[in-house]
């Protein structure tokens, strides 16, 4: 099998302007949605409480919502999570509500709404591990069970937000320094602009669809940032090599050649990674859903931006043969650690 039967270099750079306009429009749209809608931050960043309960019967969301709203604990979000029986309840931080007791109170209220009463039970799992838990018992059945709860205090949330921003800054700076050492500044700028534009677009997606932005999503964004920068690195490597080998080509032709000769690797690599991510998206359950979604958007835009945006920006910045090939006399410098770094 050979998917990519390309006879001649594809003239990508002839359409560079079109690609850049597409990028700019998507970018501006992403920024627009980020400002108008904002990110739907998870409680890890904002502080607050999340409770996941499972009902024995398909849950009546309206009833759950009105039951909790009657408690007057701030504005509540109630939604299905995974299946019709699982319900996720989000309670933001509210003044005058003791957060650390909230989970118990909410569960107690939900339990009484189902006609049950809370009792503590000691049990043993099938594997032989002792489990102590609070059970909502109504006769012999458990109308509602507490699956998971999470409470994050305001100070922790603020710290996580700051740490997240620092991590992003560190990654951008680290990659810039690396690229500047590895290539020259025009490439570093081009690569980082292209990949930051990816990050903004991922965030734009999360803002537009109001998907939940959690710590795991942030991790995915950073991982994908590192991953798609290497895409640009591969293409830049190839550009440098092409400049050396074909002395008569103009810079756009060189870029076209470099992209064409790496496109097969680009698509196969990203395709493989995407298969894995897709597997997480399908089989990973609701917990990994947004993580996998962020990766999916990131990988797709990663291909686009490193192929079409980064190279185009480098072209606008005016890369020349002289920028890359320092010694004119030698075709390939055997002592150059960067020679041969090609696909």
């Amino acid at each position, binding site marked *: *099998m*050979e998917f990519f*039967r*390309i*006879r001649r270099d594809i003239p990508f750079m002839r359409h560079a302007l079109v690609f850049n306009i597409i990028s700019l429009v998507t970018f501006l749209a992403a920024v627009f949605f980020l400002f108008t809608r904002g990110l739907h931050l998870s409680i890890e960043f904002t502080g607050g409480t999340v409770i996941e309960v499972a009902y024995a019967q398909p849950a009546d969301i309206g009833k759950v919502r009105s039951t909790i709203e009657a408690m007057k604990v701030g504005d509540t979000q109630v939604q299905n999570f995974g299946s019709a029986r699982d319900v996720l309840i989000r309670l933001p931080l509210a003044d005058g509500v003791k957060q*650390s007791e909230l989970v*118990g109170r909410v569960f107690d209220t939900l339990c009484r709404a189902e006609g049950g009463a809370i009792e*503590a039970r000691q049990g*043993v*799992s099938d594997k*032989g591990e*002792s*489990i*102590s*838990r*609070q059970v909502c018992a109504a006769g012999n059945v458990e109308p509602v*069970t507490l699956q*998971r*709860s*999470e*409470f994050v*205090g305001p*100070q*922790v949330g603020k*710290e996580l937000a700051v*740490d*997240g921003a620092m*991590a992003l800054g*560190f*990654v951008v700076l*680290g990659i810039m320094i*690396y690229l500047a050492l*590895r290539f020259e500044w025009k490439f570093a700028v081009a690569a980082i602009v292209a990949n930051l534009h990816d990050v903004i677009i991922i965030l734009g997606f999360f803002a537009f669809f109001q998907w939940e932005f959690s*710590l*795991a999503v942030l*991790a*995915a964004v950073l*991982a994908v940032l*590192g*991953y798609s920068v*290497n895409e640009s*690195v*591969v293409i830049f490597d190839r550009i440098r090599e092409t400049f050396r080998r074909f002395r008569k080509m103009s810079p756009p032709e060189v870029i076209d050649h470099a992209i064409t*000769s790496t496109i*097969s*690797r680009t698509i*196969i*690599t990203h395709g*493989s990674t995407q298969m*894995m991510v897709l*597997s*997480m998206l399908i089989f*990973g359950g609701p917990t*990994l859903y947004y*993580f*996998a979604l962020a*990766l999916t958007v990131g990988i797709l835009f990663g291909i686009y931006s490193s192929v079409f945006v980064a190279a185009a920006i480098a072209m606008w910045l005016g890369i020349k043969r002289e920028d890359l090939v320092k010694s004119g006399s030698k075709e390939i410098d055997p002592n150059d650690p960067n020679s*041969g*770094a090609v*696909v």
Partner: protein
Amino acid sequence: MNRYPLWKYAILAIALLVGLVYTAPNFFGEAPAVQVSSAKATLKLDSAFAPRVQQLLEEAGLKPDFVQFDGNSVKARLPETDAQIKAKDALSKALNPDPANPSYIVALNLLSRSPGWLTALHALPMYLGLDLRGGVHFLMQVDMKAALTKKAESLTGDVRTLLRDKNIRHAGISRDGDSLEVRFRERDTLTAAVALLSDQLPDLQWAESVDGGELKLRGTLKPAAARLVQEQALKQNITTLHNRVNELGVAEPVIQQQGLDRVVVQLPGVQDTAKAKDIIGRTATLEVRMVNESAEAREAERGGAAVPFGSERYLERNGAPIIVYRQVVLTGDNLTDAQAGFDGQTQEPAVHLTLDAKGSRIFRDVTRENIGKRMAILLFEKGKGEVVTAPVIRSEIGGGRVQISGRMTTAEAADTALLLRAGSLAAPMEIIEERTVGPSLGADNIDKGFNSVLYGLIAIAVFMCAYYGLFGVISTLALGFNLLMLVAILSMLQATLTLPGIAAIALTLGMAIDANVLINERVREELRGGAPPQLAIHNGYERAFATILDSNITTLIAGVALLAFGSGPVRGFAVVHCLGILTSMFSAVMFSRGLVNLWYGRQKRLKSVSIGQIWKPDAAANTAIKA
């Protein structure tokens, strides 16, 4: 040219073997077990306890797989859950004759089913995080300001005593937050006081100021001393938490310091947060009472008479009964510190207690009136008291510094000091983060995480084999080897596996295939360019390496940033991600090359390699090179 020297194959073989050995324990699953640990701070288990548990189990007609002592507890692995419950009941009955006042905690636990020889190699399964196992997680913030205030409070008492002892007249001492202020009327006394205080209280630094007609001396804790106070406060809180958590009978609690002022508490298998919080937040109390040494009391101690009116019978740590008055002289609230040390004169091991101002006053009065008598210090845990120590009062003790010495070893002194401190938290704590995960959800998460990795891997494997032929098979094997190495390293490090960790494994594998794609594409390109197969393989690997290195460095930068700034679940993700990048370098480059060399390297006249179809743009008819 495509031959590895023997030592390279040897390295690969060893890596494979080590990988298999350390990955293996994760597949044996877990067997039911019982765990016996001490219920009392005063009782310590040792290795001699294991044979006793073994004997008790055998008497109950049970055959444990093994019984072992592991530092804090004795664990016995049993073949099935029925036997486990029976064993728990038998042990509780035999070890705790009085169920209302248990000396031992017998808890159900799980132990790895992996064979003994693996355990002997320290090949242990990974820990499962709470999100995979179910349980509760608390992050607690220690109120360090309160710890400093408490320290300042006790120093205020010290200053007062010192000045009085040396007859230096002051116009008042007060505490303001975590600093203290002494006022003087005359310059001379101030100078004398500065000299004395700087000498005697090295933890404080003093600054003078004039306010109206009054001279003021302001003492603040030196940064180093303040840091020490905070460290000790955190340590003491962790110790206290350990004691309290033990009571919950949780098999493997985690209580760890996080950052400078936080403590993480993780209790697997506990879902009853209300009870957990209740126990964690409870305060044990310490009381000082006088010992009743009357004739009736002596008789009562021996069990010959009823306990006299107004007195109570308690046990000392060695089990001897002792009769003490009901009246409480002091409570633990007045005790600011207890440290093990040595007597200044005799160099005997001793316990030094520090009392606050109110405590010192009461203590001075009580000791003056009761020279030659015994006083008992009782620790109440779970509403039951026990006499920690009952020393004889030798002289009047003023100034709030009490020393208990005589007939003590260094270890006993340290234990006593710990017990005296264990009752209370050095500083209040607040829960700032709480997570609970139900056990069924945990099991569900394991399945989902495992399935994502499995199906993703299968999809990649099928594609690679179809697209690249034998080279695809080799790439897949290399990817499998990568997974093996990653799991083996995580097991060796005894890392805690969480759902984000599993996600990182999946993602890392998905990204790691990049290296093999690079190599395979490069080899194809060399072949397309007309290079003979052996040379194509050689050049393909050589030339792809720099690019692989490059691409991994950028990914690694992101991983390290996550490791540095991430917390909690993200950290787990980052650790796996970074390790995975490193193992993928090894497996994709060296391992796959090893396999290729093994297969093709020995063939002298290699005509073709199986790397899928090589399409050449200039040839009208596809001259594919196929194996």
